[in-house]
């Protein structure tokens, strides 16, 4: 772990398509960090007033592999099971069928090898920033002084050394998520799971956080699975984008649609947002995530409730 970040090299647009494609060949030669096999999840739904209770299928036969030190983003429409998936990967939820392997060993409950950053702020409010980041280290039995000095390095890495002694309620949302990332990374997980961690942030802060994350990832031995519903974010961060689909005629629940290699100059940075190739990938993804439907279906059955002559357009 290096305390100070190496300056982010600008992406090199001069890379040829072959060079970019070669990168994915090399990526697939890396060891598999996490493997998801035939994963399914059903929730028991309580008896409702209208009908009888039963089962809701959240995930249906999902299979994929994540390679070491890759960033995989997971995208899909709301309710397709993204959170459910990542909670199963973390071990916080039990799969109904199938299994998850980390380094070849099946996952059974949460553990420090899989760190997690949640969408809601989950810093411990009674601990200072420093103590929050030290939490995982002291859980692993690392002594106070050693834990403290390691934690300070992580806090420095997310640029919050001035706030080490502050309590979470004194931080902004973006700062809280940076601490959450530092706290998760300090525990030295093999895999970092992130469930829409930047969802609640304004676009400016969000871009900043994406840039932070890319820099950290380049400097730390970590594999990242990143859930988002933002297409730009999914493409910008990812080596590969995993597209989940919602339940439809042929699938009873959320299911894997495709995994798309992001053929863009690397390492990614925010400049990539203007690259025509970026826009093309984004367009393809958009079609996968939001399939076109006949417009007539989208007409809302609304009765006009304004006065005549008060038309807005």
């Amino acid at each position, binding site marked *: 772990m290096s305390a100070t970040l190496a300056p982010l090299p600008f992406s090199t647009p001069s890379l040829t398509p072959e060079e970019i494609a070669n990168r994915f060949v090399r990526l697939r030669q890396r060891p598999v960090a996490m493997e998801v096999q035939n994963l399914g999840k059903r929730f028991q739904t309580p008896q409702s007033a209208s009908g009888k209770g039963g089962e809701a299928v959240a995930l249906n036969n999902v299979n994929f592999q994540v390679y070491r030190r890759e960033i995989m983003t997971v995208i899909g429409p709301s309710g397709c099971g993204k959170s459910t998936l990542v909670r199963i990967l973390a071990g916080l939820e039990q799969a109904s069928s199938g299994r998850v392997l980390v380094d070849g060993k099946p996952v059974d409950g949460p553990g420090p090898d899989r760190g997690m950053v949640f969408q809601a702020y989950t810093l411990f409010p009674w601990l200072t920033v420093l103590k929050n980041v030290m939490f995982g280290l002291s859980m692993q039995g690392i002594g106070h002084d050693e834990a403290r000095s390691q934690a300070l390095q992580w806090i420095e890495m997310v640029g919050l050394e001035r706030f080490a002694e502050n309590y979470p309620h004194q931080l902004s949302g973006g700062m809280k998520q940076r601490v959450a990332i530092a706290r998760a990374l300090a*525990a030295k997980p093999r895999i970092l799971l992130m469930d829409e961690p930047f969802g609640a942030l304004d676009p400016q802060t969000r871009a900043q956080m994406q840039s932070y994350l890319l820099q950290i990832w380049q400097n730390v031995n970590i594999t990242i699975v990143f859930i988002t519903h933002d297409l730009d974010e999914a493409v910008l961060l990812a080596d590969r984008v995993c597209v989940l689909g919602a339940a439809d005629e042929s699938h009873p629940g959320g299911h894997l649609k495709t995994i798309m290699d992001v053929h863009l100059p690397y390492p990614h940075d925010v400049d990539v947002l203007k690259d025509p190739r970026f826009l093309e990938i984004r367009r393809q993804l958009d079609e996968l995530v939001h399939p076109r439907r006949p417009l007539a279906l989208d007409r809302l059955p609304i009765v006009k409730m304004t006065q005549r002559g008060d038309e807005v357009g």
Partner: protein
Amino acid sequence: MSRTSWMSVGRTLTPRQTSLLTVLSFLTPLILWSVVSYVPWIWHPQVLIDDAGGSTAMAVGNRVERSRFVEENAALAVAGKPLASGTPVNPVFLPAPDAVAKALYNAFTTPPRRGDMWLHQSLWHSIKIIAWGFAIAACIGVPLGIACGVWAFSSRLVEPFVDFLRYMPPPTFGALALAVLGINDEPKVAIIVIGILFNMILVVANTTRLVDRGLIEAAQTLGAGNRKLVTRVVIPAILPNLYNDLRIFLGVGWTYLTIAEMIGASSGISQFINQQGKYRNYDNVFSGIIVIGLVGLVTDQVLAFIGRFLFPWTGKTNGPGAIAVWRILTFVPATLFRLVGRSFRRSQP
């Protein structure tokens, strides 16, 4: 100041407004009491006889209903005897504020009748009973409550029966407590424990269940095992709420005090009050009641005040308002304390 600044929904008031209202909330009943006591034509249903005149039915110092006084005087007038005279007064059970204030002062400064206890001795005895009862209840109730909140196992095992027990009024255990624990202070402490404990288990369990699941899950992904989850996440997470729960239960302890002290050999502040009631010293009765209220209020406010320093992470800061309220609330007891101290020093040879 506009009306909205006093009445807006969900907004806190300025420190000035808060202090003002606090003073007012104590002042209003005091003013009402004074009005009823000092304005002769408000209420005053009785007449204290100053001069019996020709009446044989009334004597000097008697209190008679006003209607009877009027009838009696009418009869005297018909008979041609001298009329009785008297002053309108309130019944003996409503002494005037100054009488109560004097009684309060006297209770701390003049020795009681032989065999009786000083007010402060009675009070101290009561405080000890409450402290023991509360401490014992907390030692059992808090760990059990937390266990019930953390593990479904203990919750299902303990809570249904506790829920059943808590509907039994604690005084019904009085006879049992006497038989088992003798007639001294132990059964009294037991009543307080019974009054507090069962509800405490359920309340603490509920407080524990309210811990944000997200915090527990975050700790799990950071490698916290079951034991560490309880000691390093659940307990610190509930501490501020637990502290407030305990504060409330200390108050509940005071409400069971009177009943507890009547069991076996009656004692403490309730015995003082009852004794003075028997002597018809209602000014002393009032001073006893007020002292209980003051002790309760002051302890509660002290604990609330300490609470803000104990949990800095909750973000509730101590503004100048808090300190102003504190001064106002402690003014009466602080003055009393000073007075008592001075008179003690004077009475010492």
